[in-house]
């Protein structure tokens, strides 16, 4: 479980995060949504310790991140899997080497054990035949799946995904969403996803945190988001006519 209390973060004069408090439960898919510039990426980078923050606290299973030593922080990070927006695969390594990288760094597995494990997770993300390809030879969807495989290969306790569906077609995006959901359920990971994609919100949002101008404007789930009367949320989530119609139909059916 990740607990955030009254988190404040500024860049110079710009106050980006203004007292955010929330909890991300283990085994749940937690989504952070909000407009561009609302502070989502800064929030997720604070959670990961890539950005320092002025005040507030972030705790991982009761351990307050800022109170950990550098070595303890690095140990904690070895239990974190991260899927970056641009995948962030290492260009100089093949797909299999990318996936095996966390195992090389943090385990004492033999080469054949690492290959078996990489093979297993690559099959898990439906990339059984891509081992020897370089990242530059893979499509955007494949790169995202490799990034997910790399993130889960060492059985992380926490999985973070920054815009996992950006640049993907709707069908591939649903495949990625379902994959993240399955992995979260199967391994009981605390998953935090930063997303713009309303399909993801409706599909896998077991908990949704809506940020606006650095504040936590609303939090709920994919079920309660249909019923909310928070104008900022409805304006953002139901900005397209399609979603407006879906919401109207849902409310009519449930009256």
């Amino acid at each position: 479980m990740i607990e955030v209390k009254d988190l404040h973060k500024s860049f110079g004069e710009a106050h980006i995060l203004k007292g955010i408090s929330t909890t991300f439960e283990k085994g749940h898919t937690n989504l952070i949504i909000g407009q561009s510039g609302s502070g989502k990426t800064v929030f997720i980078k604070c959670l990961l310790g890539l950005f320092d923050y002025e005040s507030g606290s972030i705790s991982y299973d009761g351990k307050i991140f800022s109170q950990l030593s550098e070595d303890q922080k690095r140990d904690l990070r070895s239990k974190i899997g991260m899927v970056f927006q641009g995948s962030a695969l290492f260009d100089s390594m093949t797909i299999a080497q990318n996936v095996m990288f966390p195992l090389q760094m943090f385990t004492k597995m033999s080469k054949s054990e690492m290959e078996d494990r990489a093979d297993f997770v690559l099959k898990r993300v439906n990339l059984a035949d891509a081992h020897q390809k370089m990242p530059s030879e893979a499509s955007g969807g494949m790169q995202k799946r490799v990034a997910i495989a790399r993130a889960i290969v060492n059985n992380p306790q926490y999985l973070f995904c920054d815009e996992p569906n950006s640049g993907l077609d709707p069908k591939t995006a649903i495949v990625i969403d379902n994959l993240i959901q399955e992995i979260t359920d199967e391994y009981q990971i605390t998953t935090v996803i930063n997303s713009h994609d309303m399909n993801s919100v409706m599909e896998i949002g077991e908990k949704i945190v809506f940020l606006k101008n650095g504040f936590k404007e609303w939090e709920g789930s994919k079920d309660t988001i249909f019923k909310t009367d928070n104008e900022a949320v409805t304006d953002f989530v139901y900005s397209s006519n399609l979603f407006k119609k879906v919401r109207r139909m849902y409310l009519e059916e449930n009256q």
Partner: protein
Amino acid sequence: MTYLHHIGAYFLMIAEMFRKPTKWSVMRTLILKDINDLINSSLGIIAFISFFVGGVITIQTALNISNPLIPKYLVGFATRQSVVLEFAPTFTSIIMAGKVGSFITSSIGTMRVTEQIDALEVMGINSINYLVFPKVIALLFYPFAIAIGMFLGILGGMAACIYGGYSSVPDYILGLQTDFDSFHVFYSFIKTFIFAFVLATIPSYHGYFMKGGALEVGKASTTSFVWTSVAIILLNYISTDLMLG
């Protein structure tokens, strides 16, 4: 103040480079890869430049000796001193600041832009140790490249004597042997180790701490070349004054 900030951040980066070392099995692979990328791939250009500059030094020296009282072996002597003391260690390092330095800055800078460094940090890896330390170790082999440069520079001078007729080979060889001081070679290699450290760390600093996109990677490469060259020139002056002055 900005300069002081950069100097401070540079030394902090060097201190960080020695903390939380990367697993040896991984580090070994990185070092071998960097030896190939930074040293092996530079040997061709070092050999080419050294050979022809050695030849040019011989020609220039021979053409500027008009006084018949000056012995002919001075051509070999001047070529040896120029190549061993300055050309091979210092000016080759300036050229390497362009070749190796730009490679280091742009490769690390691209990793920064594409969030690969963030990926390392999130995994709990000391990214400075992972990226910079293997380059420092790989460049410990730089003096070997410089030794090849020295040899080929002197050989280039001899080739100019043979094919251009600027001096006889026995005179040239006599010049190479005259007043030879092994301390000059030692001094030259000490400088080379210092320059190797600068070549590995200043471009790494500019790549690692760059901000922005592809355009900024190009700017960082240029800035890194300028500052690496400035550092090499200043350290050359200081080391020469301390060791030969």
